[in-house]
């Protein structure tokens, strides 16, 4: 190649690069849209962030404009502060983080207006303004959840993750891969405090156990913690011991189903290491599960159903679709370590549905729970919906935020104003995603929105499920490496209730991963 020709090539490349840059920059110029045609409806945006209540500390809610157009302009404004204007050739709207944060913080309790313009066939169109109230109350700054593939029996990819709500930053809390073949699940926190955490784990090599990470304690407890609830004092945790069997449907939308063949409640006092069954919530004739403490720590709420079968009925028992859980509560005196008598809060006979996963708001006013047609595992039940009970009156209502698909695994923020929950909406009922919703003083939950991601098309091709979302008040301080190291050690406490620490074999379905 001659020197002259080489120079020509360099010049050509430079011209191409320059042209591309000019083209890209010109697309981002803010156009004049004074003569835009008004379109009297809201624009179609994806994800659906229209008419929602926005947390003032949430990451930019990037979206995609699903309207025809070669250029788009989005103006995000509120009463105070500078408006954010984004002009682009692409339908994907990326909101700059700094201005977004400033705008939301300056307008707590106000409204956020989003004007969307699209230029199609040379004509600008302006759609009706999206008006989203900005809540006065922050959402918890972190979310801990489980990411897992659409597992049935194999548990090769599963992990507990945490996500900073003000950004898109996601980090691993504990990866199942660190236990070779392992499943990590049922993470729980005391009063939304990331410094008091329990994570259940099932490993073929390292046994079934729970990791306690509380303040400066990091221990492996040789107990099979099922669904876990920390006492508000942080001194003990109640947990369920479940003999769960997974089975499969030959037809119908949902393939998977599970049944508790036996279940009981137990508790572990961390100060003296005592582990015992909850005397009146470990009935051999009933299934007890899903413990949840009242914020004052005086009552343990839980779900209970009669065992309808005998051993000779086989597995799954033919009555599997008749199992319906009642909502119960039992009094507990932490100082005397004394339990009271079970009381029925809400009977399945009254509702006609199975009552599951009670969670009480930290201010003690509301009890959020699921109800579905039958069984113990609402995430596999398309009929599962969220209900709110006013604890002062005992009245409950089905929330308007439900969809035709399963809603479950809900948690409260520590200020009782936000809930995070799992829902299978938006993708035909197959994948579980995390949704957030504002709950006002009257206990009314507002239109939910999917956990925002940097890429608005993220969920369109995301093949994992995000479940058991737990709102927490900060990052989990224990490093994943430390958790994994402890998970691989021998347990310090071993209970005789759950037969824990026996390596999980694949022939025991209840130990396999579930959403």
């Amino acid at each position, binding site marked *: 190649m001659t020197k002259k020709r080489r120079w020509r090539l360099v010049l050509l490349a430079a011209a191409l690069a320059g042209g591309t840059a000019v083209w890209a920059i010109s697309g981002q110029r803010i156009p004049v849209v004074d003569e835009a045609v008004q379109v009297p409806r809201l624009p179609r945006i994806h994800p659906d962030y229209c008419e929602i209540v926005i947390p003032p500390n949430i990451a930019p809610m990037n979206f995609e404009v699903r309207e025809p157009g070669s250029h788009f302009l989005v103006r995000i404004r509120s009463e105070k502060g500078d408006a954010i204007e984004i002009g682009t050739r692409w339908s994907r709207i990326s909101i700059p983080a700094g201005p977004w944060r400033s705008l939301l913080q300056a307008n707590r309790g106000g409204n956020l207006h989003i004007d969307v313009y699209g230029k199609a066939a040379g004509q600008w169109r302006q759609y009706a303004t999206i008006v989203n109230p900005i809540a006065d109350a922050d959402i918890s700054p972190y979310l801990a959840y489980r990411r897992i593939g659409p597992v*049935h029996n194999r548990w090769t990819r599963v992990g507990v993750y945490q996500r900073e709500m003000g950004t898109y930053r996601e980090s691993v809390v504990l990866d199942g891969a660190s236990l070779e073949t392992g499943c990590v699940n049922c993470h729980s926190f005391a009063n939304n405090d990331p410094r008091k955490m329990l994570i259940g784990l099932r490993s073929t090599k390292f046994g079934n156990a729970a990791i306690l990470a509380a303040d400066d304690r990091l221990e492996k407890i040789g107990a099979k913690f099922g669904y876990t609830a920390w006492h508000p004092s942080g001194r003990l945790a109640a947990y369920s011991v479940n003999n769960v069997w997974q*089975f499969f449907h030959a037809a119908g939308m949902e393939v998977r*189903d599970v049944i508790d063949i036996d279940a009981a409640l137990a508790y572990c006092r961390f100060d003296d290491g005592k582990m015992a069954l909850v005397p009146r919530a470990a009935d051999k004739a009933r299934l007890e599960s899903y413990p949840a403490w009242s914020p004052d720590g005086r009552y343990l709420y839980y779900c209970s159903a009669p065992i309808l079968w005998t051993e000779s009925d086989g597995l799954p028992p033919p009555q599997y679709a008749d199992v319906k859980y009642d909502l119960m509560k039992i009094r507990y005196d932490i100082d005397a370590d004394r339990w009271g008598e079970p009381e029925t809060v809400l009977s399945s006979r009254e509702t006609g549905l199975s009552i599951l996963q009670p969670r009480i708001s930290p201010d003690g006013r509301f009890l959020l729970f699921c109800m579905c047609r039958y069984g113990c595992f609402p995430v596999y039940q398309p009929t599962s919906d969220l209900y709110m009970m006013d604890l002062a009156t005992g009245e409950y209502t089905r929330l308007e935020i439900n969809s035709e698909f399963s809603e479950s695994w809900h948690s409260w923020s520590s200020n009782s104003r936000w809930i995070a929950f799992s829902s299978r909406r938006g993708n*035909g*009922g197959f994948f579980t995603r995390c949704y957030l919703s504002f709950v006002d003083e009257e206990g009314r939950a507002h239109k939910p929105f999917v956990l925002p991601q940097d890429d608005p098309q993220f969920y*369109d091709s995301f093949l994992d499920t995000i479940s058991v979302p737990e709102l927490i008040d900060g990052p989990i301080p224990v490093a994943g490496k430390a958790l994994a190291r402890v998970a691989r050690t021998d347990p310090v406490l071993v209970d005789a209730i759950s037969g824990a620490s026996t390596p999980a074999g694949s022939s025991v379905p209840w130990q396999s991963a579930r959403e």
Partner: protein
Amino acid sequence: MLLSYAYVWWIVDPRLVDHGVGILSAYSGLSFRMGWPFFREHLLRPGGIVEYVTRFSSPLFCWGWLGALIGTALAWATCLSVDALTRLAGLPRGIAVRLGPPAILLVLYTRYSQPLRAALSLLIVLAGFGIYARLAPRGRAVWLIVVPGMCAALYHIAGSASVLFPVLVAIHEILIRGRRSAGLASLASGLMVPGILGAMWFDLPLRRAYGGFLAAVSGVTVVDWPYVLVLHLWFPAVLLGAALCKARIVRKAGKSTSAPSPLAHSHRWASLLRFVRAEESSRGTKTMAVFLSVAVVAWLHHVPYAKFMLATDYYCRHAMWSQALHAAAKMPSRQYNSRFHRNVMRALYHTGRLGDEMFRYPQTTSANTDLYVVSEAEDDVLPYLQVARFFLDIGEINRAERHACETLTGTGDLPEVLEQLATINVVKDRPDTARVFLHALAKKPLHRRVAREMLRKLADDPRMEDDPTVSRLRGVMLTQDSVSFVVGVEATLLRLLARNRRNKMAFDFLMVHYLLTGRPDQVVANLQHLRDFGYRGIPKHFQEAVVAYASATDDWSLTEEYGIAPEVLGQAVLLKQILEASPGEQEARKAAIAAGLGDSYLFFLQFGTSGW
């Protein structure tokens, strides 16, 4: 190189290397997705750039000629790298050592591993070293700036394989340039880089920060990692050896005395040295000898099981049923297992030869359940993939979904599984779920067109009523629910037939079930339905079942009623004679096989296995 290209293309068949990704090794390590987020994710992590290129290039092996070209190009590049190293040490090109890395790569391809990432990382590091050697920096800047800087750059591009860079630099500085302290300082400063960048900056475990290139990821199976280790060690070893050799030559030349070295006393060693050195022997002879050695090494490491297993599965995956049977027929019976069985039975069904030829392949009384369940001993994903295909074919959509999901979680977003799950969800009237799988599939460059076409169809009609596959599957899909822990084969097939009386696959496999469970009476009872499924005559094995049933009930009128072929009746007589004449079962078995009865149902019924 031409020979190498021809060997990889025709003998190894790169299409099978591509097919093996996801089966022999996890697909997730080589999964590629288009788009900025995926690229950025790789751009930001150590070794991510090479990983990205590997992920992009690996699927290109689906075109055999291109895969062979890439494989040969890599081999050629490693060859040139060895040449460069020996030249750097002041020695001429050495045929024997230069063909080592290509031989290792050839062996890996012969074993159906995909060493693309390992080879690319290595070549990047060698290129980096080449630049360093050309720049030949001097002074303290070498170990203070140049080596750590280049190490950091290489670590970011190629990952932990970059630990070879300071090793090569140290050898170069100490033995070739004679700067011992600079060499040792470079080694120390260079080796610190993965620790600082990997372990401290990127929070990687120290083991991965330094030895990540030896971890079983991205296409190379666990058992093949020793080859990768040897491949990486080859280059420092060559440079070290060449430098020492050169030093020895220089030393010898410097000595005026003719005192022979101890080695020279060894006649054989001297001959070998003379042979290896390019200037002292015939180039053609050496080339031939080395090629022969490489061929022998490759042949010794050839795994026929893997080839036939992958070939059978590959052909079944692409509905090339006759080729699948042809590939399976090459498999020695002792290595025939459920992975073959599932494919062979499907291929026999699709070629319409199930009732005539199934006993030409190994069959046992328990083989039938392999089609429907994955045993606990099968801990890889292929059985799940195969069972998913079978269930999807036959109309057990929920079971197909379950097994496809197991494959997805087990190996990653394998395009075949994404397509399967998209189809399943369309059939189940869940277009929104299908779209998620199709959008994931559309991010794979080679499957983008298929995914977009299906997305377009879904946009036009969410039920895709006009799609023949969807219509067929909806027609056979179970609609009445039942739950169970254990798969009851007969109950399953009867349910499928109750759902759709025209489900030929369910009918054929019901007959297979009756044959394999020793129930010729049920085969006879169902012969009346043959015409409903388009049979013009009675397949051979069904005829044999009639003979077996007639013999058991002593009702030979059945043979006339069903028009049993004389040769089938003759076989029955022959088998009876052999049984009567043989002193024991083993002798009878051998004699029956010798008489050509090994592929008959009568043989299976008598001995419990087919006589393949």
